[in-house]
């Protein structure tokens, strides 16, 4: 199936998404990768508030290349999600609606996705120039000192992704691995 959806996410829409669906996202999403996740974890451990309320929001695992003058952003493709696996369940339990990245997730993350009714999308790895065109605005909202790893708020239009893990826990990569679905 193909869907056009908006972010922040509507839980009833997410509930219909299934692994393998092709989805275009429009609206507001946020970037965070390794260093930002580590810092958020430390903030939570210290009993502090996070810079973003993650409820129903999407985190895009991405650290852009610098924008040239007059441009919104540089190259902006997904990074490998599994490095964020140690941090993701906690954010999902706080209401995080979805994640965009690339690559496999741990069992713990899949369980947390099911538990919280969230979704994991993949964007095409290595298509950073193409994907940057769907980003209409970019603004650092926290951890500016982390450079490319700062948390950014992005306004996206028709940002193309594929559902990899749906709220029922179906996993597209797992299906490819066991059934070699692509070869028909």
């Amino acid at each position, binding site marked *: 199936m193909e869907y056009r959806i908006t972010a922040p996410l509507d839980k009833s829409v997410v509930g219909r998404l299934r692994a393998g669906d092709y989805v275009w996202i429009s609206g507001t999403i946020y970037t965070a990768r390794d*260093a930002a996740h580590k810092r958020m974890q430390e903030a939570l451990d210290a009993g502090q508030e996070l810079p973003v309320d993650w409820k129903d929001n999407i985190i895009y695992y*991405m*650290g*852009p*290349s*610098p*924008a*040239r003058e007059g*441009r919104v952003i*540089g*190259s*902006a*493709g997904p*990074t*490998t999600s*599994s490095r964020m696996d140690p941090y993701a369940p906690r954010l999902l339990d706080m209401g995080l609606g979805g994640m965009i990245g*690339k*690559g*496999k997730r741990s069992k713990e993350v899949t369980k947390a996705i099911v538990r919280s009714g969230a979704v994991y999308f*993949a964007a*095409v*790895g*290595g*298509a*950073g*120039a*193409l994907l*940057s*065109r769907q980003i209409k605005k970019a603004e650092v909202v926290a951890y500016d000192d*982390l*450079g*490319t*790893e700062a948390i950014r708020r992005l306004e996206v239009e028709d940002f*193309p992704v*594929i559902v990899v893990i749906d709220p029922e826990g179906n996993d*597209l*990569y797992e299906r*490819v*691995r066991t059934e*070699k*679905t*692509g*070869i*028909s």
Partner: protein
Amino acid sequence: MIREVEVGELTRQIRDMCIQVNHYLSKDMACAMETAAEKEQSLLGKKILGQLEENLKIAGEEQIPICQDTGMAVVFLKIGQDVHLTGGDLGRAVEEGVRRGYMEGYLRRSVVGDPLIRENTKDNTPAVLHTQIVPGDQVTITVAPKGFGSENMSRIAMLKPAQGVEGVKQVILDTVREAGPNACPPLVVGVGIGGTFEKAALLAKQALTRPVGEKAKEAHIRSLEEEMLEKVNALGIGPGGLGGTVTALAVHINTYATHIAGLPVAVNLCCHVNRHIKRVI
């Protein structure tokens, strides 16, 4: 005759090479991507390869790096033994080239100075520099920025001689299978067999800089490359790891003599943005 080469020339060349290689794929890679799009049998796989083609076009036309992970700069220098390098410290000249390339070329700064403290050096230095003294009076520079999505999925195995070629095949297949979608397929698979622990890894890295389509010189290695490409593609991982018949564009194997007791095998994976550029001065 001793030929003098000013290290500032290396700085200028490396700066330009860092910028060029992050915006344009080399001809061999661009051709391999086109062929992949024709060969791929999965519809979704074809669609993804189409997007990657489009991505390459946009990168060149709009001067946006092909991938946001513009890598850690790996620089190979083959220095002729009749060359006298003048005008400063060679290592610093290389660093300066990388620094200027990444700062002036709007490339991402992805390097942390200490692997445990992890503070970004903010100019993508230091580079990883490999020098080799060779006959002649020329300097050959190869710049190969390496992204870490695929670097993280690379492996080294110290096999025992009894495991033989079957063991080598197993290591290659296991590495690609485990990487699955993480390393951004379609891949180029660089393999180093033989040498010592570090030599095998270096052979694998160098294998990635070989033009795609160029085969190994030794007949038995050439046929191993062909066999492994077929087997890797039969895994069905496909473009983006979403299923398909093109999991790798090429398998390149470099070999070296080794010890009677050992059979080191290193598998260095690279994504479809396999960047390498070579200049001779």
